[in-house]
């Protein structure tokens, strides 16, 4: 039963990605189909079947289907807005460091206390894209991240990851 659920989840994900990439292929050709031509639909279904058969045991390794809830995807989409604002800040910060050359680097340890793999991955990627920080090493068991910080300040936990952890808890845990 669990295996069937894996298979269906992977199948839907693969199909959605394929249909996203071939969106609007059918408009000029066939009047009956809404957005996709018949060929693309058949091709997408067969490719998604093959992908689901081969990789379903890799994608759903944790056997926990919380990401099937669409509300989590919606929050993830909203999360890109604060992330984008931080990216803008990060780029002006890097521009300032490139021009003045004023750096004081250190590698610090933070403990974000996130339990899921997806949450830690997204946190690590967000940290890499935000001002002056770069993830160097992840300790899976203890949920510790080692961060290269270009200009050290006090209290790394709150300054680096505080606002992201609060966001990521909402959709990844």
């Amino acid at each position: 039963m669990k295996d069937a659920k894996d298979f269906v989840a992977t199948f839907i994900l693969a199909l959605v990605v394929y249909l996203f990439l071939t969106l609007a292929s059918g408009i000029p050709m066939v009047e009956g189909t809404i957005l996709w031509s018949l060929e693309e639909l058949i091709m997408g279904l067969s490719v998604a079947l093959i992908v689901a058969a081969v990789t379903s045991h890799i994608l759903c390794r944790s056997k926990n289907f919380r990401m099937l809830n669409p509300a989590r995807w919606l929050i993830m989409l909203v999360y890109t807005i604060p992330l984008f604002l931080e990216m803008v800040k990060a780029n002006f910060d890097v521009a300032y460091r490139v021009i003045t050359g004023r750096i004081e680097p250190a590698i610090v340890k933070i403990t974000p206390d996130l339990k899921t793999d997806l949450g830690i991955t997204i946190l690590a990627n967000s940290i890499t894209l935000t001002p002056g920080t770069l993830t160097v090493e992840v300790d899976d068991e203890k949920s510790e991240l080692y961060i290269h910080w270009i200009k050290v300040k006090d209290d790394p936990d709150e300054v680096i990851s505080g606002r992201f952890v609060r966001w990521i808890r909402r959709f990844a845990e």
Partner: protein
Amino acid sequence: MIVLALVSIFMAISLIFNGLGVVGLHRFPDVYTRLHAATKCTTFGSIFMAFTVITYSGAMFYWSNDAKYLNMALHTLGAVVALLITNPTGAHAIARAAHRMGVMPKYAVKDELKEAR
């Protein structure tokens, strides 16, 4: 007119930040700081190049109602997602490999990862 202004601004941002990333690649002293410049600036710059294309083709779709332009904008959005996911992860992989190889950060004030090993 607004579209033209937006497209020019986005393209200028893209060129400036990609240039800063490349300059930072040569100006910073060690691997980790170079990764800062290379990852953040080039990701941001390339995303803005994609935004240029999205804005332009979106406006073309609005004017001409040709599905080709919508298709273009959506595919470029896919490229943005691919860049956003793959680029920081690659930077993280290089940083980890560099630290395990024994390349230490220059001028570092403290190194808690080295103490943990």
